[in-house]
């Protein structure tokens, strides 16, 4: 997929995210827009997945541990054909398979349910360790947030990943600097996150988290005998001027005026 096509896809995914969240009048715009390219690098480039066979035994596993950003994931899964794009417009409604947080029992293509932050990190360790145990060669990707790393379990998972030499595990950090109550530094500073993961024993790489090619390259750098940590520098609310870098947009409802402005910024004319 060349750059032009991929950029156009990223734009379309953002349009879908805004539309989904406007329609359900809830959910997390800033968080979803932040990780679009990280998820795209996985689903369109790096990961071995097949929409026609979502439970393929040897597929790579993808865990969106920061599950509140699932609108981005749903838009991508719909685009890839895991389910109908029409389903997106019923996000968070009663009896929709698209839950407020990813649900592996309801939605095709979701490998792991998430939403309670931190838990995905250790589930991913289990998946990666199981792959080693079974002598299977698939990889496990887990996307975590920079507020999420404040959870102790994230560090228990990191310790185990290094202890078991999980070189089939890749942790991708959506490093947007913000959480709900403010910036990481205002709420609970996470310090030098690269140094922390390096000290734990990870191979650490820092990339522009909105550059799909850079993320893909980092994923593809071969590493043996230890897990990989990719610090993806991102902008929360990326793509919508009034959402970018505003922690208030973590989980704010989009009103009609904001909806129209947002879509216009994404090159779509509306008249809601």
């Amino acid at each position, binding site marked *: 997929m060349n750059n032009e096509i991929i950029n156009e896809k990223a734009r379309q995914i953002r349009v879908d995210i805004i539309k989904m969240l406007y329609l359900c009048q809830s959910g997390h715009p800033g968080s979803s827009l932040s990780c679009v390219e990280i998820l795209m690098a996985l689903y369109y480039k790096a990961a071995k997945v097949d929409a026609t066979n979502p439970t393929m035994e040897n597929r790579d596993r993808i865990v969106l541990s920061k599950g509140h950003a699932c609108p981005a994931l749903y838009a991508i899964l719909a685009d890839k054909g895991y389910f109908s794009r029409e389903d997106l417009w019923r996000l*968070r*409604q009663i009896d929709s398979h698209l*839950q*407020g947080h990813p649900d592996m029992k309801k939605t095709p293509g979701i490998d792991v349910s998430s*939403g309670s932050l931190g838990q995905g990190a250790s589930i991913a360790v289990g998946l990666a360790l199981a792959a080693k145990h079974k002598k299977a060669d698939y990889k496990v990707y887990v996307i975590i947030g920079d507020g*999420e790393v*404040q959870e102790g379990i994230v560090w228990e998972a990191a310790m185990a990943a290094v202890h078991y030499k999980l070189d089939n595990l890749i942790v991708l950090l959506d490093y947007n600097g913000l959480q709900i*109550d403010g910036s990481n530094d205002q*709420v*609970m500073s996470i310090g030098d996150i690269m140094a922390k993961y390096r000290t734990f024993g990870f191979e650490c790489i820092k990339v522009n988290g909105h550059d799909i090619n850079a993320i893909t390259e980092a994923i593809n750098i071969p590493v043996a005998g230890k897990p990989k940590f990719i610090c993806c520098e991102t902008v929360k609310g990326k793509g919508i001027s009034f959402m970018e870098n505003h922690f208030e947009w973590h989980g704010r409802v989009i009103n009609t005026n904001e909806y129209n402005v947002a879509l216009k910024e994404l090159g779509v004319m509306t008249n809601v």
Partner: protein
Amino acid sequence: MSESKSLRVAYGEALAELGAKNDKIVVMDADLSHATMTSIFAAKYPDRFYNFGLAEVNMMGAAAGFAHSGLIPFASTFAIFGTGRAYEQIRNSISYVNANVKFGLSHSGLSVGEDGGSHQSIEDIALMRVLPGMTIFVPCDPIETKKAVFAACEINGPVYIRVARPVVETITREETPFIPGKANIMKDGSDICIMAIGLMLTEALKAADILATEGIHTSVVNFHTIKPFDTECVLKMAEQCGAVVTVEEHSIIGGLGSAVAEVLAGNSCAKFMRVGIQDKFGKSGKPADLFAAYGLTAENIAAQCKFLIK
């Protein structure tokens, strides 16, 4: 028209008011202060507010440390993470040593709505009820929420205040007594007694109105304190009405329904039924749609009452 406000806003306002009266009060949160509404306290007393970030386990442990140092910490997050992830801290660091920690945990029950089953705590009362020495308040409206906060401060030991997310109408009055461990009879009838907690009281009162149109005289009792439990009131109402229905925005296992069943077993021949979440998880949807889907509506409560006494 009665005033409407969310329980969580009432909680935040009550903390701020209590803070003015008692300088030992400190408030802790885990990156949800604008959802639990401890932000109201934080704005007024920034020096007595501690954000622990996404680290509920550490927050609960630190709350014990505050309490051991003579302070009165109110620790807040969502009910699912507070009672769930940090459960063993609540058990061993706090409850086991009767540490003077208060938990104001919001977003309880299905009324969390669209966030879905991972965020809807329907087992928190069960978890907290089995801990010796724990006090549990489930306020039904903003006025009662404030009373629960003030009452919690008077108790020496752990207190759980179960707070809900939505805006609700006020159904009690300023002068209504709030005595920990003493249920309030909101409506007195002789045919059947609905025992309810939290947001379900509104539905229970409406159910009583529906039943009244059919000549059925219904009692409605507010068990705002789940622990210590008003066993006397349960037995009195069971005797008076001969039929009891419990209603809660919680699993029918381990919550109000179980507490009443434990009292009735061996002590009463009253007919008994539990309305609540029938051993299932929640899911995404608007709160009203979820209440309808899980049978937590006045119509269903009335129907179950009729079924029980027919």
